[in-house]
């Protein structure tokens, strides 16, 4: 192979409604590696990109939540397959973004792939584990089943660019929610590459929408948006900002997941899924 060939570099764009637009603002920002080298100019998303992403996410709710749990599980598994196929690329990107040695990047990517597999298996078990037949004191059929809350705004972890991201997105969508994700501002490139995986995994457009940019700028628009049902503030490191976002989220009583340290390598707790599910209870008389 000739070594003097100039590589073709990727333009990192946003991922909204299944497409890869630039920011409507036309802005971008420099993304540097952990070691300080220039990596790319990422799109610097604006409030209008948040608006467009929420619109896309809302539009996708019906189809995604209406899909069978089996189908959603297959698609999540498909995401793992696609990710596995690009394993080397992700290891390189994660290492560029996060620094560290090759084995830690490998471990992160492998765990991210396995996490999709883990969540894929949950799709058709959630209702069994988190649902109930309720023995009410009367002649009534009474069943509680979890349903998606709708559109979830996710602030992805700032540090763990892929594993952390997958660990917050998968539990949201496995139950039928759609989401708008603010990727790690300093480490956004694996997120956009993940979007390429999502786009080729039979995941309907709009189920996951990924924005790159500044949390402090975009967070308030996302948390305050009246057509968003829940927010995951995991990646908000600034306590004052987290509080402000929680206050903004209260405008329409969003479900809020506060920032808290999480061990991304460990097997997840269920509450990341359950927090975005609405137990719905249906009553019906039993008669002849």
């Amino acid at each position, binding site marked *: 192979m000739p070594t003097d060939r100039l590589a073709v570099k990727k333009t990192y764009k946003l991922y909204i409604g299944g497409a890869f637009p630039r920011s409507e603002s036309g802005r971008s920002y420099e993304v540097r590696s952990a070691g300080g080298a220039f990596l790319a100019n990422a799109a610097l998303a604006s409030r209008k990109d948040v608006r467009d992403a929420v619109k896309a996410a809302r539009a996708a709710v019906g189809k995604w939540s209406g899909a069978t749990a089996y189908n959603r599980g297959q698609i999540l598994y498909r995401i793992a397959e696609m990710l596995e196929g690009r394993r080397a690329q992700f290891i390189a990107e994660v290492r560029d973004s996060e620094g560290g040695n090759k084995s830690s990047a490998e471990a992160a990517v492998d765990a991210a792939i396995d996490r999709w597999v883990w969540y894929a298996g949950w799709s058709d078990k959630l209702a069994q584990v988190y649902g109930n037949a309720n023995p009410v004191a009367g*002649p*009534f059929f009474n069943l509680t089943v979890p349903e998606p809350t709708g559109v979830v705004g996710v602030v992805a972890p700032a540090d763990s660019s892929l594993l952390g991201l997958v660990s917050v997105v998968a539990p949201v969508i496995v139950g039928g929610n759609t989401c708008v994700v603010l990727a790690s501002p300093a480490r956004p490139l694996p997120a956009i590459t993940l979007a390429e995986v999502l786009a080729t995994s039979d995941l309907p457009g709009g189920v996951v929408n990924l924005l790159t940019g500044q949390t402090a700028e975009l967070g308030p628009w996302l948390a305050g948006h009246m057509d968003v049902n829940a927010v995951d503030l995991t990646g908000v490191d600034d306590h004052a900002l987290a509080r402000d976002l929680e206050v903004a989220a209260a405008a329409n009583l969003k479900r809020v997941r506060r920032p808290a340290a999480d061990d991304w390598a460990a097997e997840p707790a269920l509450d990341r899924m359950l927090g975005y599910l609405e137990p719905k209870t249906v009553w019906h*008389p*039993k008669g*002849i």
Partner: protein
Amino acid sequence: MTATVSALGDVARSDAALRAFLHGLPGVDQVGAEARAAMLGTRSIKTTAKAWAIDLAIRMVDLTTLEGADTPGKVQALCAKARRPDPADPSCPAVAAICVYPALVPTAAEALRGSGVHLASVATSFPSGQAPLDIRLADTRAAVSAGADEIDMVINRGAFLAGRYLEVFEEIAAVKEACGDAHLKVILETGELATYDNVRRASWLGMLAGGDFIKTSTGKVTPAATPPVTLVMLEAVRDFRAQTGRQVGVKPAGGIRTSKDAIKYLVMVNETVGDDWLDPDWFRFGASTLLNDLLMQRTKLATGRYEGPDYFTVD
């Protein structure tokens, strides 16, 4: 064809048309209907309201004896009781009617003469109705000619449950014709109909075919009258009058033994169909032991002390 049928169009022109009509009636949710009946059963009827209701209930009793062991002597005693339920209290009203087997109609007619108490006879091969139609019609005519002014017939449940609605309709219509001027009460035998949907359909069938009353039960099948069954029948007569202009009476029969039960039924009449049915011409109780309990409660209200059965006649 009767006027009521023409008001709805000729729904009985064919089995198919009749089936389409009956199956087009709104469904009855069992749990909801039973809950409504139970809620009405919680009404607390006290003092003056209770006294009023007890007197009305006495006036609504079809005092009944339908035993193989019935004799003229038994029926004569019952007729005396019907005329003057409480010999100690002349203010106590008479009951609505005596209800007996056809063979005892002549005895009862004699005993009730001039009393104003109606004479009802079960007919149509009561209680099963399992006899050829001509025999059932002859049974009816015999009872009427012997002096019955009310006929309590049983519908052909076998035909109803088999879906032969037109057959049931035509039989009722034929009995109605055989009744002449006598009022026809159509016994649905709701205990054999199994569902409230069937009770509603059978109620309509009985009314469409010309019944003057629809009646729950023969008293020979368990369950007999229940509050929810009666509720569904009351809703049927209410809706039937709204659609046809013709008022039909309701008679729960069997199993109503206490004043408390009877008052619950009157509350249900009051809050389902209202004043128009709170009258012996439009609501009856088919009962035997109920009367004495009504009398005891009546006396208790008047005297303020609890009564004992030895003070009321056993007939």
